[in-house]
């Protein structure tokens, strides 16, 4: 069953273009130049109940704008969207009680007060039954290991701890749909791992629908089966992670371990020599010629060990973004 249905959704902004210098600033008082920025250019998307979908794209691709449209924070220029049957930008309370948005770069907790005070406020705003509230809060703080920090002012929490509190605040009303905008930004690897783990278990146990944007490939690898790639305001890929490699990963990496540490000359005739630290060698080879290269290498050289791998996902995505940018 489709929970999120988007058709031809577009959002354009008029942005003031400010020239340098005082004279230009004075001129700007009387006549201003604007530029239209098309943040989202007519996207179509359908997300089923219980899916965990990643939104990938370079900065300025339109990911956050799409999440803000789906949360009803902003209205579109054209197109339609329905989340659980609601039109988000009508901002109906019945809809607002059923979803949550977490933004890694913004915080909604009272800065000078312990997080628990903000949680209580959420309890009232979302009309959560007191016993239910206590149970959910204790469960969430237990899962994230922050139960002992509930009475500490938010400004005295570490970034990772604060992010966990933000997540708890967003989940207290048990939303059916969760929008996550870079929830692990700026966190160290341990905090990132903990939050990934939590999100994975939470989503699996509650079967909620999640849309996640992140620049960290590890988040996406750990959490999402389906990836939507958005660039220049358009969806350019919608499918599995493995599909990205098939579609955009044009080469593989062959790692060789040579006998007696001997590295033969002219290995670069097989492909691009990525590294040579005898006895280990890494070659980047076009996917289509991998079997031929392997056959040749093994026939002509003394090899102890060999492995063939896809290049790191970050590399594939970065190459893809570069290509999209170049093609404009």
């Amino acid at each position, binding site marked *: 069953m489709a929970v999120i249905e988007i058709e031809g959704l577009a959002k354009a902004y008029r942005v003031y273009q400010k020239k340098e210098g005082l004279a230009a600033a004075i001129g700007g008082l009387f006549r201003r130049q604007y530029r239209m920025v098309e943040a989202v250019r007519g996207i179509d998307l359908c997300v089923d109940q219980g899916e965990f979908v990643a939104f990938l794209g370079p900065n300025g691709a339109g990911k*956050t704008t799409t999440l803000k449209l789906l*949360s009803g*924070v902003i*209205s579109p220029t054209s197109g339609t969207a329905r989340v659980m049957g609601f039109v988000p930008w009508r901002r109906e309370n019945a809809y*607002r009680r059923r979803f949550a948005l977490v*933004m890694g*770069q913004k915080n909604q907790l*009272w800065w*000078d007060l312990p997080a628990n005070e903000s949680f209580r406020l959420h309890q009232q*705003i979302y009309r959560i039954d007191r016993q239910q509230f206590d149970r959910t809060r204790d469960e969430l703080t237990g899962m994230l290991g922050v139960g002992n920090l509930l009475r500490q002012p938010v400004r005295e929490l570490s970034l990772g701890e604060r992010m966990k509190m933000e997540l708890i605040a967003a989940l207290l009303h048990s939303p059916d749909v969760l929008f996550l905008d870079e929830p692990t930004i700026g966190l160290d690897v341990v905090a990132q791992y903990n939050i990934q783990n939590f999100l994975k278990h939470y989503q699996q146990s509650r079967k909620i629908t999640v849309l996640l944007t992140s620049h960290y490939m590890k988040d996406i690898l750990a959490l999402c089966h389906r990836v939507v790639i958005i660039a220049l305001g358009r969806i350019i890929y919608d499918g599995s992670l493995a599909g990205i490699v098939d579609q955009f990963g044009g080469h593989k990496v062959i790692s060789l371990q040579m006998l007696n540490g001997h590295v033969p000359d002219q290995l670069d005739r097989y492909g691009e020599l990525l590294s040579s630290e005898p006895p280990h060698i890494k070659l980047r080879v076009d996917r289509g010629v991998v079997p031929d290269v392997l056959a040749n290498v093994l026939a002509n050289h003394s090899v102890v060990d060999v492995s063939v791998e896809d290049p790191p996902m970050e590399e594939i995505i970065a190459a893809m973004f570069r290509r999209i940018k170049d093609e404009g």
Partner: protein
Amino acid sequence: MSLYLRVFLTFARNSLVRDMTFRVNFLIDTFSSVAWVFMNIAFYTLVFQYTPSIGANTGWEKYPFFLFLATGLLINSLVQAFFMTNADEFSELVRTGGLDFALLKPIDTQFLISFTRVDWSALGNLVIGLALMLYALVQLHYAPGPLQIVLFLFYLACGVLIYYSLMIALAATTVWLGRNQTLLDFWFYITNFSRYPMEIYVGRWGTPLRHFFTFLIPVLVVVNVPARILARPFVLQAQSDWLLPVFGAIATIGSLAASRWVFQRALASYRSASS
């Protein structure tokens, strides 16, 4: 208890807890605003050493005027305590994109924005205002009747609501202007006109000014109507005195409706800020 009242009480409680965390700051805030009020009272006491009343035959002698001053103090302290910080914060939320979170909550956004913080330190002036009012009434040997007290409280609330409407509408313009840091300055300039009895606005410049700040931006109604309910019994009643309270009630409803309209339009135009 209704949802809105419960949420407001939690806001008030959280604000108090927060203020108490920074208690020195709280004490300095209270002290400076109370000191400002005492300087004002001292100034007007000085003025009345030179003149028996503000304007000839207006009825605004020293103690009736002190009732006027006290009414203004009550209204100002209530507006400062409940709305000033929030309106200021609203401008900042629009500029930084923090308004996003308010728009997500299943509760009226204008309510949420208007009541998030209570500036408890501003309530010090409420006590001073009440004390000044009592002092003036004692000096005048006058005890207002129940109807007068009810009407006074009603128009006091009207005054607070007119000020609030103006303030929230001004703050909402940040959505279109991008930045509105002069909000408090502008607020001070406009409300400055309401600090004096409307009788002083006569003559070539005064009359148009009075009409402008009564009918277009009704700030003259804010203090004048409730203050007259207590202070005017000491002067001759004019027939037109009845018209002003009626207009005051209409102006309150009109101001609230206009500010609601501006606020809703602003929310519809809100474009958030970069992530």
